[in-house]
């Protein structure tokens, strides 16, 4: 091996074009005069897919390569065979990308990683399997299935490249996860991975709806009760005081706690999979039973999520059977998608059944799930029994299901939820265009104790605030709900049409229809959705502009008996709304592309307010190394407010540039400014204008394929309009004025060991002025020291973050 390397290096110096084919770049291959551009590309793709040539004679296996090309390459280049068991650099890169995308909604990432190691045998794949891959559309998946079913098996993945209606992006997104191999059900190859993540640091950060805010609100509620500011009965007053006080003490234990994650996954050939996870989130409270009725002692104090699964695949018609934790996302997500997260305007959804080792807790399914495929029939069955958090009245009655990062005993594990259901799809492929199917599903959810929504126990007695929350008021008491869903999809050339309708047993319904027309240079996506006010499926993750309790009283903790109840505002189900969303991407020329343009027109169902939102982004790329993007966003939204509705008009401009000054450097600068105008309201008097903006820069330098360092900084200034930006590992909210610096080191130490280390410092400044009060009763003061008045000051919060992630694979 070493001698081969030395030989390669020597030849590389002596012969023009002489290099190792396995490590050559596409540009180097295209620079070989003896190969056509297409042949160079084919060769590059072949090496990419197979992980490397074992000898120079392997080139004869590539379509379009014969003795002439073999002789030519043999005289000009060398082949240094990849070491046994080596994972190709391309696969490492994909793993690296997937490692940064792990989140509560990303159970599929684990399965994608498995596919990188044991790819899907493409010749027996169905469109159902292919669309479960990362960002592979229904049109792309159906195009491949059409090719395989009509023209027979392919001899290489590369030959899919020119399949009708398969876009370049679709091909690129699936090629890492598929191969021309056959399933090897006798294989006992043992593979797996272990991940440990420590995410800590220290300091204080502004989190409008997080732990710091909740602690402040709890203390304020305590004071309000102590001073007799609430009209409780005497017994209620004592009970509320105890509860609020206990909650605050519990949450104080969570301040600045370090996040830990241990996750192990194993696989045996093409048959068996297993895994387990033990983790705790940053600033997260623990101390609850990781497994119901099982005292795990110190583990309960150290961790807040425990998960595990065992699954078996490819037994006759059973494609997959999972015992333990699983994630299921089918149709348009109106019937079942058990994630803790719902992204606004998310047009992409992972499809299928996946074992679940994500951080999802409230919606985690624990039980068993089955995926069966027999002929044109594809069916899913699932059963889950798991404890769920809920808001509890002061007398202990469960009020409404609940999800919160600031988890405390009164809310934790209040009811046991039993869920079962199924979804069956009949595939008309062959009779009708491949990708055409209808589906019928049903689900029943029941609870160990009846949930009794009661606004009277949520709202502070005698409070002047008008309750006004139709989304809550419409809920009825009960201990079970059932749902029936119907879905359909078809393909017409490069146009996909999909839809799903779900009806709840309270006569309410949700419906979504979606159409997409796509090719390499253009796509047009349209989504129509309607969610009834009474439709309250906790597993609904359909496309929406807002969460169910956005713009309601649950955004105001100080109006609630227990401020922690306000976390219901994070409930990840769509708001009752009806609307039409249109999105497009259009490449005008080689240098100009409208990267994302969308318009959403929607109506709030409880109030009938009409809203719209438009965004347009255009990219100019004069050269491969430089890109400029300009984005404009405008939103006009009305929400119910005290006395009269309030309309907000948001305008935002973003200018972004990308530079690639060398092959190993990436530079990115972004400038954003925005403003929000609020219409007059008795609360404000006149029109109110808020503004904000930031300047961010990021630079990444790759020292080698195995080592890169990324550094970034952001400066922001806001006047009431908070900003947000995407960092390398997630979204970050920026309040007040401030600066931020971060450095991320990525190191692939070997084929099976990867390290990511990140350090962050964030300084936020909030000027607090006008605090002088001549009246001592009205003054601002230090906590615990009311006799020490406070003058103006700048509240300077500094947050430090240190995150270390280690992935070991075998």
């Amino acid at each position, binding site marked *: 091996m070493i001698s081969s390397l030395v030989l390669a290096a020597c030849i590389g110096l002596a012969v023009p074009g002489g290099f190792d084919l396995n490590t050559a770049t596409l540009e180097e291959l295209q620079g070989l005069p003896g190969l056509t551009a297409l042949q160079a590309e084919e060769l590059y793709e072949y090496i990419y897919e197979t992980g490397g040539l074992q000898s120079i004679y392997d080139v004869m296996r590539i379509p379009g390569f014969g003795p002439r090309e073999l002789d030519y390459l043999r005289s000009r280049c060398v082949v240094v065979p990849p070491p046994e068991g080596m994972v190709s650099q391309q696969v490492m890169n994909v793993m690296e990308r997937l490692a940064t995308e792990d989140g509560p909604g990303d159970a599929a990432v684990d399965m994608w990683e498995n596919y990188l190691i044991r790819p899907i045998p493409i010749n027996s794949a169905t469109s159902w399997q292919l669309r479960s891959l990362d960002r592979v559309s229904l049109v792309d998946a159906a195009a491949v299935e059409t090719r395989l079913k009509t023209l027979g098996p392919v001899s290489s993945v590369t030959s899919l490249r020119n399949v009708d209606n398969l876009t370049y992006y679709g091909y690129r997104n699936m090629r890492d996860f598929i191969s021309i191999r056959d399933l090897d059900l006798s294989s006992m190859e043992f593979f797996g991975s272990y991940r440990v993540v420590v995410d800590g640091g220290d300091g204080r950060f502004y989190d409008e709806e997080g732990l710091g805010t909740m602690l402040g609100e709890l203390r*304020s509620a305590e004071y*309000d009760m102590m001073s007799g500011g609430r009209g409780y009965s005497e017994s209620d007053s004592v009970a509320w005081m105890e509860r609020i006080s206990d909650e605050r003490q519990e949450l104080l234990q969570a301040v600045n706690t370090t996040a830990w994650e241990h996750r192990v996954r194993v696989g045996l050939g093409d048959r068996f999979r297993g895994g387990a996870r033990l983790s705790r989130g940053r600033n997260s409270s623990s101390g609850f039973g990781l497994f119901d009725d099982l005292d795990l002692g110190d583990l309960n104090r150290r961790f807040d999520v425990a998960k595990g699964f065992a699954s078996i695949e490819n037994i006759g018609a059973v494609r997959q059977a999972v015992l333990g934790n699983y994630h299921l996302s089918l149709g348009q997500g109106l019937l079942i998608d058990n994630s803790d997260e719902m992204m606004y305007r998310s047009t992409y959804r992972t499809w299928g059944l996946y074992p679940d080792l994500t951080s999802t807790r409230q919606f985690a399914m624990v039980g068993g799930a089955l995926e069966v495929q027999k002929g044109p029939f594809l069916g899913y069955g699932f059963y889950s029994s798991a404890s769920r958090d809920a808001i509890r009245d002061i007398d202990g009655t469960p009020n409404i299901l609940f999800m919160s990062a600031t988890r405390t005993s009164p809310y934790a594990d209040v009811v046991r939820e039993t869920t079962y259901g199924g979804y069956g799809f009949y595939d008309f492929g062959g009779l009708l265009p491949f990708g055409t199917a209808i589906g019928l599903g049903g689900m029943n959810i029941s609870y160990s104790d009846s949930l009794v929504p009661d606004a009277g126990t949520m709202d502070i007695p005698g409070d002047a605030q008008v309750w006004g929350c139709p989304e809550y008021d419409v809920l009825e008491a009960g201990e079970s709900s059932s749902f029936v869903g119907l879905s359909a999809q078809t393909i017409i050339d490069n146009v996909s049409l999909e839809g799903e309708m779900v009806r709840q047993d309270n006569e309410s319904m949700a419906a979504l229809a979606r159409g997409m027309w796509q090719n390499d240079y253009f796509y047009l996506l349209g989504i129509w959705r309607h969610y009834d006010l009474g439709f309250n499926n906790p597993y609904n993750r359909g496309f929406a502009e807002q969460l169910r309790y956005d713009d309601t009283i649950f955004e105001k903790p100080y109006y609630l008996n227990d401020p922690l109840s306000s976390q219901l505002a994070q409930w990840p189900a769509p708001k009752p709304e009806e609307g039409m969303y249109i999105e497009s991407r259009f490449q005008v020329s080689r240098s100009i592309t409208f990267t994302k343009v969308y318009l959403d027109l929607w109506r709030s169902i409880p109030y009938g307010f009409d809203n719209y939102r438009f965004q347009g982004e255009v990219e100019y790329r004069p050269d491969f190394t430089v890109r400029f993007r300009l984005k404009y966003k405008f939103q006009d939204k009305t929400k119910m407010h005290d006395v009269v509705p309030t309309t907000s008009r948001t305008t935002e401009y973003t200018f972004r540039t990308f530079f690639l000054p060398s092959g190993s450097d990436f530079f990115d600068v972004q400038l954003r400014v925005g403003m929000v105008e609020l219409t007059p309201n008795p609360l404000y008097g006149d029109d109110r204008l808020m503004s904000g903006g930031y300047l961010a820069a990021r630079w990444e330098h790759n020292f080698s394929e195995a080592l890169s360092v990324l550094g970034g900084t952001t400066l922001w200034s806001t006047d009431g309009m908070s900003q947000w930006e995407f960092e390398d590992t997630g979204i970050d909210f920026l309040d007040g004025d401030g600066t931020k610096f971060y450095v991320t080191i990525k190191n692939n130490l*070997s084929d099976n060991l990867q390290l990511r280390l990140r350090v962050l410092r964030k300084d936020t400044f909030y000027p607090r002025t006008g*605090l002088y009060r001549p009246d001592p009763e009205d003054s601002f003061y230090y906590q*615990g020291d009311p006799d020490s008045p406070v003058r103006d000051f700048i509240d300077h919060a500094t947050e430090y973050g240190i995150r*270390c992630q280690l992935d070991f694979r075998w």
Partner: protein
Amino acid sequence: MSIIAAGMISLMTVTAGLPEVMWLGEPLGSQSAVSYAMGGSGFMETSALGMLENPSLLGLSEDGLLVEFSGGADFIVEKRTRRVYDQFESSIGESEIAFNKEMAFFPGGAAVALRGISGLPGSVAFAAGYRVPAIFGYSYDRIIRDAAYVKTGEEMLDVSGQLNEFDLAVAFMPSEVLTFGLAGGYVTGGRDVTWEVAYVDPSQDGTLAGRTESMSGIVTRGSLLFAPRDRVFVSASVEYPMALSVSPENSGDPADWNTLSNEDYDLDMPMTVKLGALYVPGNNLRSRVTGDFFWSNEGSLQFEDASLGLSNSWGMSFGVENTLPGGPTARFGFSYRRSPIAASLDRMSFTTGLGFRTGDWNLDVAGSFSPDRWMQTEVAGLPSFVSGDSLTVEETDTRIMFSISRAFRL
């Protein structure tokens, strides 16, 4: 020697001292800039200074004489804030009441390691040296104001000193894959504390108090190194210190100071178990990966038959070294350490560094960054510099280290 520092802190905390991060500064961890850049622990570092802490690593040393010197500087920035409330008892933020900066230079150590010279059996190696296991460096300054924001006085606290350890280590290598090591050290050092409160009004009595402590003790270590396969080395050790003898001397106004007497006393030290691994992947960057874990039994410590009220502590560190082709050696790492005193004092550090080689000489520089934030109320037994329950301490500890080493082929 971090356990000795921890033990001292424990005693002081229970007897109305301050938590370790303020009172004693930090244990140094590694005395070599090479391993300091790789997570801060020297347990798996094959330098001369590292072999004093883990003598079995002599099994990985080259034949000849290895010499190493190190030193550094510690820069502590501390901000103290109090939460501000409005008339509705709603918090509107935190106002800064004190801001302190302290920079202290310290010697890291000096050591020699010897192996494979004529007259010595090939299966035996030695190391000897001096190292500084912990430093005491803290300074606090606050202006005292009345309700009208008029300065009425000033409060100052100053802590200085260090622990020194003189070690001898020997290793036996019965086979190529196994090494046993033994080491012993004599610990000595001292700590000076001064607390002063001075008022503008000369008629108001201030406070000036001091305490000087001299310390001495013995520490022993046993370790083994095993190479289970190519490129992988694992090591385990037990560190067992004898009781630390402390001779204190109070000065000034003891009534305002603390209740510690002037009498000498012995302090039992905790035992520490360490496990570590070194992995050399064999990649183009000639990477080295080190990781280690320690566990210490502070939870069982007693003083005058009473529990010190501590918890067992543990920590881990992880580091990577990459030799950039044609460039210097780049290192980085991170560590996590649980405090035996209170969970809020747990500490996480990021470390980084560079190594340069010229001929037989090596120059290594390293830096670490550790942020910390805790509330006075979260640590039992602390005196409060100000009244109220919301005193919050935000501290960052930035440390720079360098070391110079050279290998002589005898």
